[in-house]
């Protein structure tokens, strides 16, 4: 089936070429980073995790969101999702590969990465994260590919596929819970030390992931004629709406706890997040954009009429994705470090090479999605024309 990704029209070829170029550029800068060290990024002694880890955190959520298609279809027989669960699984594959790549480029000594397996450390959440992420990747590649193959041949999938898909449902929840535990278990970081970290991660995952999937479906409809179906898109939009509302509620709940109890250690981080500290307010500006996007998107999505209109739905989904990317991909990580344990406000700004490497990894992810979706579309075309 892989050969189906090697043929396509001119637009497809240009798109793939552009992604390859971006990935190549990222790779070039990664070689420079290997040579110089991580000092090539904007990270410092105080802000020791930055853009790479933030992207990883956000993308684990996107990966987990496949469960929002799988659960209704396989557990509750929601037939409308039947055609597109594979799209969700393939998105999970691409997202997990991006996650693992972002962790890899963030390591100071990447050649030693196998030490995590050679010297297993069950008390370390990063150890468990490696296991659950790779397990989830395996499950989704195997099930997605097998189901697509069987569709192509017009036969039902083999018996072992279903238990594996059932396994992917709690596994999806686990990958994002484990990632949240990376942050939520650190006694010294008041901004992250909250039990609601895992529920927040899940809520934003189930908003941003399906939002991205809706956008992908709209793109597929526009460029390939594949129609996911009004009912499926509508159901996904409903999921995004409820998940976004929940995510916003969770943030508000956090704000109450922090600002009502007024414990300085917690207040300072939120003050930095929304207003800035000591003149460093870049993140605060981003968060304003994030909040506005979220509210605008929620207002759009609340009305069923707007959910039915593709252009408005697309705008709302872009708003959701952008808002949550800013919140998880920028705000969450840096704010954990500002102020530092010694009350210092250290500025963090990603450098050019850091951004180039980040874009390169995103390009790799989009390349994988493009290839997998192209195969899917080609198979669907073969099946539908028969």
């Amino acid at each position: 089936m892989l050969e189906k990704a090697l043929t396509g029209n001119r637009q497809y070829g240009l798109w793939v070429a552009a992604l390859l170029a971006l990935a190549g550029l990222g790779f070039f800068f990664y070689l420079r980073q290997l040579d110089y060290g991580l000092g090539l990024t904007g990270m410092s002694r105080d802000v020791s995790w930055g853009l790479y880890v933030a992207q990883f955190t956000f993308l684990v959520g996107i990966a987990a969101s496949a469960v929002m298609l799988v659960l209704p279809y396989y557990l509750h027989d929601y037939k409308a999702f039947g055609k597109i669960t594979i799209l969700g699984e393939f998105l999970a594959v691409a997202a997990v590969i991006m996650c693992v790549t972002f962790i890899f480029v963030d390591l100071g000594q990447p050649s030693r990465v196998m030490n995590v397996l050679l010297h297993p450390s069950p008390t370390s959440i990063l150890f468990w994260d490696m296991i659950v992420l790779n397990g989830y990747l395996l499950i989704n590649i195997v099930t997605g590919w097998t189901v697509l193959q069987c569709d192509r041949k017009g036969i039902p999938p083999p018996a072992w596929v279903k238990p594996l898909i059932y396994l992917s449902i709690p596994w999806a929840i686990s990958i994002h819970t484990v990632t949240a535990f990376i942050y939520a278990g650190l006694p010294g970081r008041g901004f992250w030390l909250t039990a609601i970290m895992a529920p927040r991660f899940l809520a934003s995952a189930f908003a941003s992931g399906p939002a991205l999937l809706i956008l992908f479906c709209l793109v597929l409809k526009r460029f390939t004629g594949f129609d996911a179906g009004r009912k499926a898109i509508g159901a996904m939009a409903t999921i995004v709406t409820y998940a976004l509302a929940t995510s916003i509620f969770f943030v508000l709940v956090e704000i109450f706890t922090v600002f009502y109890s007024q414990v300085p250690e917690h207040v300072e981080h939120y003050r930095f997040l929304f207003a800035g500290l000591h003149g460093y307010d870049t993140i605060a500006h981003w968060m304003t954009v994030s909040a506005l996007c979220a509210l605008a998107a929620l207002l759009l999505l609340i009305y069923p009429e707007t959910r039915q209109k593709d252009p408005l739905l697309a705008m709302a989904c872009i708003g959701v994705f952008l808002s949550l990317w800013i919140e998880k991909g920028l705000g969450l990580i840096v704010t954990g470090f500002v102020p530092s344990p010694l009350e210092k406000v250290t500025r963090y700004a990603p450098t050019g090479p850091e951004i180039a490497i980040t874009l390169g990894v995103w390009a790799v992810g989009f390349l994988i999605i493009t290839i997998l979706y192209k195969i899917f579309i080609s198979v669907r075309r073969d099946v539908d024309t028969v």
Partner: protein
Amino acid sequence: MPPSRREFLIVAGLTAVGMVCPSLTRILHAKTAVTASGIVTAVDGMTPALRAKRWAMAVVPGKCPSDCRACIDACHLTHNVPDFGNPKDEIQWIGLQPFERIFPGQTYPEMPEASKKRMLPILCNHCDNPPCVRVCPTQATFKRADGIVMMDYHRCIGCRFCMAACPYGARSMNWRDPRPFIRKINDDYPTRTRGVVEKCTFCEERLRKGMLPACVVACEEKALLFGDIDDPRSEIRRLLDKERPIRRRAELGTKPQAYYIL
């Protein structure tokens, strides 16, 4: 019937894996042809190591002269700690911070400025319940039986999870190659390489040779006291029993072993 392309590829793939597998198992089961002796506490001509049940450090900042950096200079010189000249890449094993930053919970608005701004030495607390050890995915940082939280620079993958976990800001990452930035190399101690995290190790390499930590020895005012807190007759234990020491962020449950006598 001739094999299909799929079957051929599957068999070829499995063959390739099968050819690689034996060498993998060989690596995993490689036995070292060498064994090392057990701990020998004294050999002719070599000073015996200092041993303790639980090492701890007492800091008496009242004895620090203003503008004194003897402990920092001694430590960083002994251990080839680089000086990058900018706060972004900074590496620090022991440092000085104002009281209001180290003990913000004990600072109040009416406190005299001099007290708020008084500089105190800070270093790794070698906690009894260290969160950094808990989170390390390779056990590159680990707790020794004598209480020292140790660093294995050979194993560190530079993920910086320990830096996120440390509530005290005690750890530093080598964001670049440190060698060009070491003012004066000490041949008797290695440098580190780019991409690993480093911190104070209570001079375990000196303890092994029967010497006290460099910072303790360098302090002429005896503001730093190092010893076995588990030994009721040790100088540090007697001092701590007499005074009322406080520890940084003790409410977090990390059980830090750097005691401040203010």
